[in-house]
């Protein structure tokens, strides 16, 4: 086989998936490297589930090639692919015990009972499950235990790539956080390639080496968590990160833009090639308010009309006097803004902190 050094384990070339006239996946190209934790993030309906179903072999692409270690696998069914998925519903077999679930692929492959049991016990230990859970029924397991059983069952298959279809989405916040970290640990221990899909960019940020962001069937941006955070390619990615201030702007000169709604001019420190019209994205945490905003190149006058506690931070809502735009501003809890509600204040930001994107 032609899996030379540096060649990606999985390559997607011009993948298209049509459902009738609807293009669920629209010309996606992607290369996933050996051993990386790659996460595909997108809102519901972005095509990420269709995508993973094709990668696992449960659906066939309408056009394009899926290449695993140099071999085209479009027409290889899921049962014959050396990859495996952890389902959103986990899809544990309810009529089998934890042990029988984990051993399923080994039983199918004709591995002897004693050897199967040995491997299952190893996996139980690796996933921090007590050995006595081997003979437990799946329904007696807690949510977290079931996640681990599903992962153990997939690992028992010894897949080249392990796929995850948002398995953590139904769990409560604390358990999800714990399992996200555990999953990352297991990735490090097993050194396998993990491909994860989720609608939560936050979840993706915690776990992934690289992230691919999907919207409306297209892969909008691929990069490390830091790249995605610092330099979103467009408005969608910028806003997908969480609450941001987005202003529609047009170019007026070198590194100068003008707001469409009130004509205010702002200075930026970077503009994309050939920029004419687009959006200025300013995160709430980099907007200064009150005394802190003094002397900044980009300034707006407005009225504070709301404040919320976000735990470690406080968020203020400021209505701009010129165009009534509602700005979000955040300060750390222990250094709040000195004024009160209904005060007229200045807010502002440094030109290098804002992000300018086309479209």
């Amino acid at each position, binding site marked *: 086989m032609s899996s030379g050094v540096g060649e990606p384990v999985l390559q997607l070339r011009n993948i298209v998936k049509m459902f009738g006239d609807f293009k669920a996946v629209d010309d996606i190209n992607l290369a996933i490297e050996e051993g990386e934790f790659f996460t595909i993030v997108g809102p519901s309906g972005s095509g990420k589930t269709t995508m993973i179903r094709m990668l696992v072999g449960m659906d066939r692409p309408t056009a394009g090639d899926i290449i695993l270690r140099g071999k085209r696998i479009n027409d290889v069914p899921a049962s014959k692919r050396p990859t495996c998925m952890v*389902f*959103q*519903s986990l*899809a544990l*077999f*309810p*009529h089998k015990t934890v042990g029988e679930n984990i051993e*399923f692929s080994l039983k199918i492959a004709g591995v002897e009972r004693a050897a199967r049991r040995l491997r299952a016990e190893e996996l139980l230990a690796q996933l921090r499950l007590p050995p006595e859970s081997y003979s437990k029924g799946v*329904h007696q397991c807690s949510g977290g235990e079931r996640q681990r059983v599903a992962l153990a069952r997939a690992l028992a298959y010894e897949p080249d790539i392990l796929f995850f279809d948002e398995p953590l989405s139904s769990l409560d916040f604390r358990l999800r956080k714990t399992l996200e970290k555990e999953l990352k640990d297991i990735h490090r221990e097993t050194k396998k390639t993990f491909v994860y899909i989720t609608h939560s960019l936050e979840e993706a940020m915690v776990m992934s080496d690289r992230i691919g962001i999907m919207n409306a069937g297209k892969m909008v941006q691929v990069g490390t968590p830091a790249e995605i955070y610092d330099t979103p390619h467009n408005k969608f990615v910028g806003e997908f990160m969480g609450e941001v201030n987005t202003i529609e702007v047009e170019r007026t000169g070198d590194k100068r833009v003008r707001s469409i709604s009130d004509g205010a001019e702002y200075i930026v420190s970077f503009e994309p090639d050939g920029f004419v019209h687009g959006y200025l994205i300013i995160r709430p945490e980099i907007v200064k308010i009150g005394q802190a905003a003094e002397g900044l190149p980009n300034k707006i006058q407005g009225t504070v009309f709301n404040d919320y506690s976000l735990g470690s931070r406080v968020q203020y809502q400021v209505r701009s006097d010129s165009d009534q735009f509602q700005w979000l501003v955040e300060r750390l809890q222990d250094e709040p803004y000195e004024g009160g509600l209904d005060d007229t204040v200045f807010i502002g930001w440094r030109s290098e902190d804002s992000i300018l994107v086309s479209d």
Partner: protein
Amino acid sequence: MMKWLMQPGVRAAVPVMLLMLIGFIGPLLMVTGYSFMPPRTFSLLGTPTLANFISIVTDSYYISFFWSIGLAFTTVVILLVICYPVSYGMAKIFGPWANLVTIIIAVPLLISENIRLFGWVLFLLKNGIADGSLHYLFDVHLPSILYTVPAIVLGLVYVYLPFMLFPLVIGLAMVPDALKEAASDLGASRWQVFREVELPLAMPGIMIGSLLVFVLSLGSLAESKILGGQAVVMIADDIESAFTFAQNWPKGSMLALLLVISSGFLIFFLFKRIDLDRLIGRR
């Protein structure tokens, strides 16, 4: 005691409890009582005796039992084979068309079973619809199956089809597609997915359908009488003639009791072997 009776759940159950007492438990007890009365008597107050039991086991009634159980079993097997693919389609493939199939299968239930069976007689009769059409179109006469054992099986299969189909549809609908995909993703072939995942999870529906058809066929009378002529005598036939023609209630009662006990034993044995709770995943 009074406190127990005042609970809303108990009070709501009173009508059905009374109905079951009068309509089900009562007759069952009476049949049991008559079974041990002297032959050809009509009183429940005679001296208990095993005369009926002895006369039945020394006579050739085992043949009727054999036919009833054999035909019921055959019907179950044939219906499983016929209904499994259709129910799979209705549960997973047909989508909105499944409702149409349901209606097509359910509508004949509005017509009396006997009338439908007489319809089959007209169809299968010599010079009837099947024979006449074949003769007219191809100039052939084929021997009719009417008044033979296959005709009885045809009748049983036809009449009890819905009782197998609908439980199977529900059973198969209860198998999540993701489980089958997961099994296949873990390397299982289609056959292995069927055996390891689909069949065990659909088992409650399969069991309930088989049980219904088995019990109903075991007690069936019309099919063997109308379509079978005198080809074979099923046990329900024997029970009927004991009560009517022979005017021997105690013997009829003993036959009925033996039928209830034997089918009850078969069912108990079956359910004992297959743990429904485990199949559904409650344990």
